[in-house]
């Protein structure tokens, strides 16, 4: 299938776009004891996928499907902003988006990524950046959404492995069993974008920013 190499590169945790330093709330959840083993982690990841993952997938789909459209991306970026209640999470999302655009511009030089950088100079939200990077990498909107859904949980899973010393194979089995397809849907109209909130993730992100000793950016 066309676009598969691009999807593999974008979903790979080794993509040098700064993702390794974000835990998606997992560091704080580990710190307060909300995640202490594989079962907690599996519940955390299912929740993340069903909320943040679903929204990210829809935004990435839409951003990828928009053809070189600065105004569409600006609009989608505002939609992303409106869907993230926590300022800490908004900041983390924009930081990751900015770093991803910078990296992707050098891997897949394209008018689309240059246009996105112009449309949202302070850094687009990560799912928007991912959608446009996926477009530049030759991916389909469905693949962009899959990359968004998948990366919405992999960072948190890896962080838990590092922080708690969990068995990495057990954690990968958890990742393999997550229902990625169920959060991906074709997007036609921005007014129909999903808006699943996760107040617990918002709170974790806010507390994390105020925790003195932390390894991860978010």
């Amino acid at each position, binding site marked *: 299938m066309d676009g598969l190499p691009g999807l593999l590169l974008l979903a790979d945790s*080794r*993509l*040098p*776009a*700064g*993702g*390794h*330093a*974000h*835990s998606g709330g997992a560091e704080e959840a580990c710190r307060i004891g909300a995640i202490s083993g594989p079962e907690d982690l599996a519940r955390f990841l299912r929740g993340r996928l069903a909320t943040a993952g679903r929204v990210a997938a829809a935004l990435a789909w839409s951003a990828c499907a928009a053809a070189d459209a600065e105004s569409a991306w600006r609009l989608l970026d505002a939609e992303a902003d409106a869907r993230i209640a926590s300022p800490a999470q908004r900041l983390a999302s924009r*930081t990751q988006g*900015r*770093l991803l655009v*910078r*990296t992707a*511009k*050098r891997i897949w*030089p*394209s*008018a689309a*990524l*240059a246009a996105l*950088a112009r449309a949202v100079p302070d850094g687009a939200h990560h799912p928007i950046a991912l959608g446009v990077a996926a477009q530049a990498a030759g991916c389909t909107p469905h693949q962009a959404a899959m990359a968004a859904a998948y990366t919405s949980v992999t960072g948190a899973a890896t*962080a838990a492995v*590092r*922080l708690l010393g969990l068995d990495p194979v057990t954690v990968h089995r958890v990742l393999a069993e997550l229902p990625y397809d169920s959060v991906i849907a074709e997007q036609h109209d921005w007014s129909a974008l999903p808006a699943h909130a996760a107040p617990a993730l918002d709170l974790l992100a806010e507390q994390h920013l105020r925790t*003195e*000793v*932390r*390894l*991860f*950016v978010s």
Partner: protein
Amino acid sequence: MSANHDDHHDAPDGHGRALRLGIGGPVGSGKTALTAALCRSLGPSLRLGVVTNDIYTTEDADFLRRAGVIDPDRIMAVQTGCCPHTAIRDDIAANIDAVETLEERFGPLDLVIVESGGDNLTATFSRGLADRQIFVLDVSGGDKVPRKGGPGVTSADLLVVNKTDLAPMVGADLTVMSRDAAAVREGKPVLFTSIREDRGAHSVAEWVAGIVESWRHQHSHSHL
């Protein structure tokens, strides 16, 4: 490559930007002390920026801010997600972002120092992040450390062996360290320092001033 046209920071040849100097080495060897010393010695003559890669806290950045050797706003701290190594070698995006933010805010700069989080002997900076790198050891790890090698010790542009004031106390033989370092480094420079005694690390500062000067010659805006 019209996509990158407007983004001179992507220029791999380094035209029109500061020299990026990585300072790496094991935990506690004196990387922050050296960074502070360089700010002290070079601050009056060079436009500086500093990026720290703290592991748990913003300890190093806070120390440098308190030391009052550089405008606190010119120090940025990067978080490394359990892997100080990754942030300077495999995924340098956050460090590049910090360096470029400093250059955009305070530029033009002459020198941006990137201090890595304390790591082990295998840690080195990616060439995509650091134009030159210093590896800092201290004598208290024992005088056999240079002999053990590792990419930091063997290939850094400058090897600094710090805390020479402690050598008698830990029984480290500096001539052994010097001889072994020279052997594994094939002539690349090695400097011995005691930043406790020389708070400006003057020999290192002189070396850094030299590389900044030649960087400037090679990378001035000759095309303008």
